C-alpha cells in the first residue's frame, strides 16, 4: 500500500499542470521556457554541479530522434518530463532515464526546419510547424487538441520559433524574411487557439514607420520574428528581435531606414501595441537579423539601478538599453568590424562609406553569418557578466537586381561568401555590463556556429560547438573544466534541470538528445 501511494504521488507530480505562476517563478528544477525564464538570462540556479566537481560529469542517457538531421530544439522540462521537438514532431521523455513516453508525428513528415522547441502551459504542449500552424497537444499523451493556421504556407511562411506563453496567451513568431514576406508577431488564446492580436513588423500605409520605406518597397519587406523573445512581467512588456529587410543585399530598391527591421521592439503583452523600438542597423544591407535574444537584467548602470536590456547583435555590436523607455545607454563592438566608425550618442551606427554589397563583392566584417546569431547568450548575476558566442570573420558580399516572386522564393538579391584571406573563428566571450572583454575562450578549429551558452549558479558556462563538443568553462576565467564529444554538430543550447535530487545538463546534439549528471557510481 505504501508503495502504491508513492507511485501515485510520483505520477501526480509528473502530470501537474503548468500555471502562469509556475512560468513566472520558474522553479530551477524545471526548464520551462526556451531561455529558461522570462528574463532570458539562461542562468540556472542549480548548483550541485560546480567548478570543483564538473570533471565528474558523465553521460546519463542518449535518446536518438529517429529521422533527425540536425536538431536545434531546446528541450522543455516539466516535473521530470522532457519535451523535445523536431519539425512536425514532439517527443516526451522521462528526463531521468531518456525513455520515450509518447511521441507526436504530424503528417506530412516535413523536414523543413529547424524547429527550435515547444512551450508547455496547463496540460498543453504548443509547437509551430513547417507549414506555419500552431499545434496544441495534450502534455500527458500527445493527443492533438487543436491546430490553427498562423499564415499561408503556400505564401512561403513557416514557424520555426519556440512559442512563449504569457498569462493565457501563446506568442508566436514567423519566418522567413529572406523571401520578401512581411513578418509579424501573434498572440493566441492558450485554451482555444483563437488569435487575440497581431503586430506587423513592417508598418502599413498610415502607420508610423511606413515612411521609412521608399515607394511600395514595404510590401515585400521581410522583418521576420524567428527567435523567441523575452518578457518583463512588471512592465507587462514583451521584447522581440526583428529580422532583416528584403531583398537582403540590395538596398537601392528600399531606400530609408526600413523600420522595424533590425530592431528590438517592446510590445504591450495584452494588446500587442508598440511601446518603443530601437533599431540596431538602419537600412541594413548585410542580412544582419536582429533576432538575437534580448536579455533582461536589473542592475546598477552608470551609478543607478536600472531595468536594462542586454543584446549582442549580429552586426558586431553589444548594446545596453533601458528596457522601460528604449533609451540607448551603451554600445561597443565585441568583434572586429569594418562597417561602422562607431555609434552616435543615440546608438545609431556611423557608417563607413562603401561597405555595402557590390556586383564585384565587398569585404564586410562581420560576415553575414554574423558576429553572433541564434546561439543564445547568458547572463550570470553572480559575476555580473554577459556571455555570448562570437564569430570573428569577414565575408565578401555581393548584390544583384532581384525580383520578388510570391510562393516562398528567396528574395535576397544575392549573398556572401567567406572571405578567403582568413577563416572564420568561433569564440565564447565574457563581457562586463559595459561590454569590456573579461575573458575569451577560442573554440579551436570551430569556424561555424555551434550552440549558445548556459550559465549555472555552480559558476559554470556550458557551451556546445560545431565539432560536437559540450564544454564546461569556469565562468570567472573561461578555463575549460570538462568536455564531452557528443559525436555530431551541436546546434541547440544546453539546459539544466533536476530530477530525483540530481542536477542534469542536457542538450540536443546532432540527431540525439544527451543528458549528463555527476557520476554517482551507478
Amino acid at each position, binding site marked *: 500500500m505504501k508503495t502504491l501511494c508513492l507511485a501515485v504521488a510520483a505520477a501526480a507530480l509528473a502530470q501537474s499542470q503548468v500555471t502562469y505562476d509556475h512560468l513566472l517563478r520558474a522553479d530551477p528544477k524545471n526548464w520551462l521556457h526556451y531561455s529558461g525564464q522570462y528574463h532570458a538570462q539562461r542562468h540556472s540556479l542549480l548548483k550541485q554541479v560546480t567548478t570543483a566537481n564538473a570533471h565528474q560529469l558523465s553521460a546519463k542517457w542518449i535518446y536518438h530522434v529517429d529521422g533527425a538531421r540536425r536538431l536545434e530544439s531546446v528541450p522543455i522540462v516539466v516535473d521530470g518530463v522532457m519535451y523535445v521537438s523536431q519539425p512536425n514532431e514532439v517527443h516526451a521523455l522521462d528526463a531521468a532515464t531518456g525513455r520515450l513516453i509518447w511521441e507526436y508525428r504530424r503528417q506530412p513528415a516535413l523536414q523543413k526546419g529547424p524547429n527550435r522547441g515547444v512551450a508547455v502551459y496547463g496540460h498543453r504542449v504548443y509547437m509551430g510547424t513547417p507549414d506555419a500552424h500552431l499545434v496544441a497537444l495534450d502534455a500527458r499523451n500527445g493527443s492533438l487538441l487543436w491546430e490553427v493556421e498562423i499564415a499561408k504556407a503556400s505564401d512561403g511562411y513557416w514557424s520555426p520559433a519556440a512559442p512563449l506563453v504569457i498569462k493565457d496567451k501563446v506568442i508566436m513568431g514567423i519566418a522567413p524574411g529572406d523571401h520578401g514576406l512581411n513578418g509579424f508577431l501573434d498572440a493566441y488564446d492558450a485554451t482555444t487557439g483563437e488569435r487575440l492580436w497581431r503586430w506587423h513588423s513592417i508598418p502599413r500605409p498610415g502607420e508610423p514607420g511606413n515612411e521609412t520605406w521608399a515607394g511600395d518597397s514595404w510590401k515585400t519587406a521581410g522583418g521576420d520574428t524567428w527567435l523567441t523573445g523575452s518578457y518583463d512581467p512588471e512592465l507587462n512588456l514583451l521584447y522581440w528581435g526583428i529580422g532583416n529587410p528584403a531583398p537582403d543585399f540590395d538596398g537601392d530598391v528600399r531606400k530609408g531606414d526600413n523600420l522595424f527591421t533590425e530592431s528590438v521592439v517592446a510590445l504591450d503583452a495584452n494588446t500587442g501595441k508598440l511601446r518603443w523600438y530601437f533599431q540596431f542597423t538602419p537600412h541594413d544591407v548585410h542580412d544582419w537579423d536582429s533576432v538575437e535574444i534580448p536579455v533582461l537584467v536589473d542592475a546598477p548602470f552608470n551609478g543607478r539601478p536600472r531595468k536594462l536590456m542586454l543584446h549582442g547583435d549580429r552586426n558586431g555590436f553589444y548594446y545596453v538599453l533601458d528596457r522601460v523607455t528604449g533609451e540607448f545607454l551603451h554600445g561597443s563592438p565585441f568583434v572586429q568590424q569594418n562597417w561602422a566608425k562607431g555609434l552616435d550618442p543615440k546608438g545609431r551606427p556611423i557608417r563607413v562609406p562603401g561597405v555595402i554589397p557590390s556586383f564585384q563583392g565587398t569585404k564586410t566584417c562581420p560576415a553575414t553569418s554574423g558576429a553572433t546569431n541564434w546561439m543564445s547568450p547568458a547572463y550570470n548575476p553572480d559575476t555580473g557578466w554577459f556571455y555570448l558566442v562570437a564569430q570573428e570573420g569577414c565575408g565578401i558580399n555581393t548584390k544583384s537586381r*532581384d525580383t520578388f516572386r510570391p510562393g516562398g522564393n528567396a528574395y535576397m538579391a544575392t549573398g556572401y561568401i567567406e572571405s578567403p584571406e582568413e*577563416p572564420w573563428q568561433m569564440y565564447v566571450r565574457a563581457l562586463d555590463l559595459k561590454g569590456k572583454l573579461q575573458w575569451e575562450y577560442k573554440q*579551436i578549429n570551430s569556424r561555424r556556429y555551434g550552440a549558445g551558452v548556459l550559465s549555472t549558479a555552480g559558476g559554470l558556462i556550458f557551451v556546445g560547438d560545431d565539432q560536437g563538443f559540450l564544454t564546461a568553462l569556469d565562468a570567472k576565467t573561461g578555463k575549460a573544466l570538462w568536455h564531452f564529444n557528443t559525436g555530431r554538430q551541436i546546434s541547440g543550447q544546453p539546459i539544466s534541470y533536476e530530477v530525483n535530487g540530481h542536477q542534469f545538463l542536457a542538450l540536443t546534439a546532432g540527431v540525439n538528445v544527451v543528458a549528463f549528471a555527476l557520476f554517482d557510481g551507478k
Partner: protein
Amino acid sequence: MWILVVLAAAFPLAAQVSPYRIERAPSRITLDARLDEPAWRDATPVGDFIFNWFESGDREQTDARMLWDDDNLYVSWRCQDRHISAQVTERHGPVSRDDCVEIFISPNPAKVRNYYTFEINVIGTMLNRCRTDWWTGPPTWEPEGVQYRTTYHGRARKDESSDDREWIVELAIPLRNFARDAAHMPPRDGDEWRLNLQRTGGITNRQNSTWAPIAPPSKSFHTPESFGRVIFSTQVAAAPNAEAGRKLYNANCTACHGLDGAAGDRAPALGAQRRYLRRTEAELFDAIKAGIAGTLMPASPLPDSQVREIVGYIRSIRATAIDFAAPGDAALGREVFAGKGNCAACHMIGGRGGIIGPDLSNIAAERKYEDLRAALTVAKPVPPRGFQPVRVTLRDGRRVRGVIKNENNFSLQVLGTDDKLHLIDRSQAASVEYEKQSLMPADYGKKLTPAELTGVLAYLSTQSRRRAE
C-alpha cells in the same frame, strides 16, 4: 645534364602526340556512315593526321573520333578525298591498296607488341589480324561481333569521280575481343591503352597518314612502339563550341557583364560560383533567350544556335580542368612531377607518391585549370584546412612537425613529415606553433621552365576518376 643532351642527340625522339581521352558515348550510335548523331558531334577529334613519309601531293586530312560504352569501342573517320576508289571485296583481302582506314590496338601498354588490327576499305571490306604472343591461329583473325558501315558499303567497286569530296567509316568493335590483354573489361576510368589510327591507299594522290607519328627509321604502320596513348574516361562526351561562344559573349554581353566572364559594372561575374547564378544548360539558355524578368538582363535576339554556344562558353568557364584538352606535354609533366618538381614527394596519384599533401588522382575533376596553375605559382594567404603546418613540442621534449588533420581545444591529430600519425593530447604539448605558410611551394613559375610548368599542368589536367554526372 650533358648526358641527357648527348643521348637526345644520338637517338632523336619522335614527336609525340598528346594522350587522347576516349569519352563515353552519351547516346546510342547508329552505324550508318553518316555521323550525324549528337554523340559524334560532341566527341573530340583526335587531331590532325601526320604524313610521316610525305614526298609530294595534297595532304588530305582525316577527322577521326572515338567513343566507348560498356560493350563497344566506337571509331569514326571522316576522310577528305577528291579521288575515292576501291575494288577489294574479298574478306581479309589487301584492302590497304584501296582508300582504306585502319586502327591498330594494344590493350596492354606494358605489352605494346600484343596488338589487333582492323583495316576497312571504302566499299566495306575488312582485314583483321591478331598480332599477339599468344595467338597460334592463321595469319588472319576473326573478331567477334564487329559492326561497321562505310560510305560506299557493299559496292562491287568504287571508281574515282569528279564529285568525290569525302567518305566516312563508322565502326563498333566489341571490347570483349580484347579481354585477354586488357587490364579491365570493360575498361575503367583512367585505363590507358595504346593505339594508332591510319589512312592509306587510293590511286590518285596516294598518301599514308597516321594519328600518332611513327618514329623513324620505321616506315611501317606496324610499329606499336609508336602508338599513341588513349585513356578511357567515364566522362560523357559533350563539347559545346566554347571558343565561338566566347566571341559571341564578348561581343554581345559585355555592356553589362565583364570580358571573358568577369564581373562587369552592372552585372555579376558569370564565371563565379554563386548560388544565385543559373547553372544548368536549360536555365542558362532560358536566361539568355528570355532575359531575367525584373532585372537589367534583357532577352537576346540571337538565334538559338548562337545562344547555345554562349551557354556552352559560360558552362566552360565554370568547368574543371578535365573538361578541356590542356596545352603542353603531359608526358614531360609526368616526369617533372616525379623528378624535378618533387611533387610526388608529397602528393599521390593513382596510389603512388607521398602522403602529406592532398591526393591528386582526381584533381582535374575537382579544380579548374586556372586554379591548378594558381596552386603552383601563387602563395595561398592561409594554409588550407587539413594541411595547416604545425610544430609541436611535447612536454617530454619530443618534437613533431607535420600538418594538422584535425584539432580542437583538447587534442591534435597530426600527420608528421615523418609520414607517421601523431595523436596528441593538448595537455601534453608544451607548445603548438602554427606555421603561416603552407608546405606547398608556390614558386614553380620560377623553378620550372614554361614548358615544364605547362607540362605538369597538362599532366594534372588528365587526373580524374569517375565523375558524377
